[in-house]
């Protein structure tokens, strides 16, 4: 039978797990070769409080080769032991286990509604937290960073805004066009992507501070 080149599938690899708002999370895996046969993937997991083996509750929501854990299946401060099995007619192969505590895999979506307003002596940058993040209740605390540069410049200038959702940028050149982006990070977690670029031209009437 082995002459027809068909074998058990290779070992898959769990590449990443992320939570966007500390209430749900997803994991993605990379399949190995399928041994030339239709191969099925199952994600199995257990947690400290529920050591019995459970299967991924939702293989769809986060796209191909993924598992999505909704609020009911997501707990913090507990280690998830996660394994992905690849199975075909010839046999099966399990990934290395991945140990995940949702507390430490939080990567929010970027801030939204970035607005730029030229004031007399500075540029006021304002934004909103990512829509899915429940900041009001205090379950998630975000800090922000913004960067800007003259359109043709290479170097970004970065400013840390702490927990504020606005920042005054000074020493800008009249007539120049600037591009601005903002990103956020949970108090203890990963930086989001930068928000889409927002542009503004500084009018010639702008008073350079001096």
């Amino acid at each position, binding site marked *: 039978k082995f002459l027809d080149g068909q074998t058990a599938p290779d070992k898959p690899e769990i590449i990443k797990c992320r939570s966007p708002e500390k*209430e749900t999370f997803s994991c993605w895996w990379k399949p190995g070769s399928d041994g030339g046969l239709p191969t099925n993937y199952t994600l199995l997991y257990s947690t400290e409080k529920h050591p019995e083996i459970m299967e991924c509750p939702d293989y769809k929501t986060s796209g191909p080769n993924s598992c999505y854990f909704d*609020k009911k299946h997501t707990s913090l*401060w507990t280690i998830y032991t996660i394994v992905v099995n690849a199975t075909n007619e010839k046999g099966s192969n399990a990934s290395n286990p991945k140990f995940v505590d949702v507390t430490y895999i939080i990567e929010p979506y970027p801030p939204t509604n970035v607005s730029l307003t030229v004031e007399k002596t500075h540029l006021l940058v304002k934004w909103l937290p990512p829509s899915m993040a429940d900041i009001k209740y205090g379950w998630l605390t975000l800090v922000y960073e913004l960067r800007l540069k003259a359109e043709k410049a290479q170097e970004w200038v970065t400013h840390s805004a702490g927990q504020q959702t606005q920042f005054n940028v000074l020493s800008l050149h009249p007539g120049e066009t600037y591009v601005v982006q903002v990103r956020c990070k949970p*108090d*203890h977690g990963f930086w989001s992507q930068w928000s889409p670029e927002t542009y503004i031209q500084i009018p010639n009437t702008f008073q350079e501070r001096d």
Partner: protein
Amino acid sequence: LPICPNGSVNCQISTGDLFDRAVKLSHYIHSLSSEIFNEFDERYAQDRGFITKSINACHTSSLNTPEDKAQAQQIQHEELLNLVLRVLRSWNDPLVHLVSEVQGIKEAPDTILWKAVEIEEQTKRLLEGMEKIVKRVQPGDLGNEVYSLWPGPQDVQVADEDSRLFAFYNLLHCLRRDSHKIDNYLKLLKCRLIHDSSC
């Protein structure tokens, strides 16, 4: 000595200010706890599989703490405040032990020692503040149950290096976890009690 300026009766630090300071301190303590864990993990725990052994091995695991937002929303703030107090108190002895034992780790960098001392000191400060907040928020009995969930350092005395390193790893792993819980719950309580859940 008159306590307050020009005779005002209730001259004391506002509860909002007390919470602000507690949250800053808990944020700082957790940041340090993460750093000391990561430093120890990188230097002493690589490829030793300690994480599998540290499952369900925290001395505070038996405390029934909320583990998601829904559970946190259901719990009364008095209960959550008392939980924070209990978790904090359960770390008194382990932190004293950690500071004394860290000096015995082979070539332990100064940064690990400094952070252990700083965490112990700041945790005592946070406990003082939490006791004040709890007295302020629920003037009843503070309930100073003597707390020692921690079984004590027996593993750490054993000769073999792997067990000694695992005992440290597990202590730092649990410290990182519990300091994050405290930080999270305090931020949540601050939003709930001071900003009426509208942070």
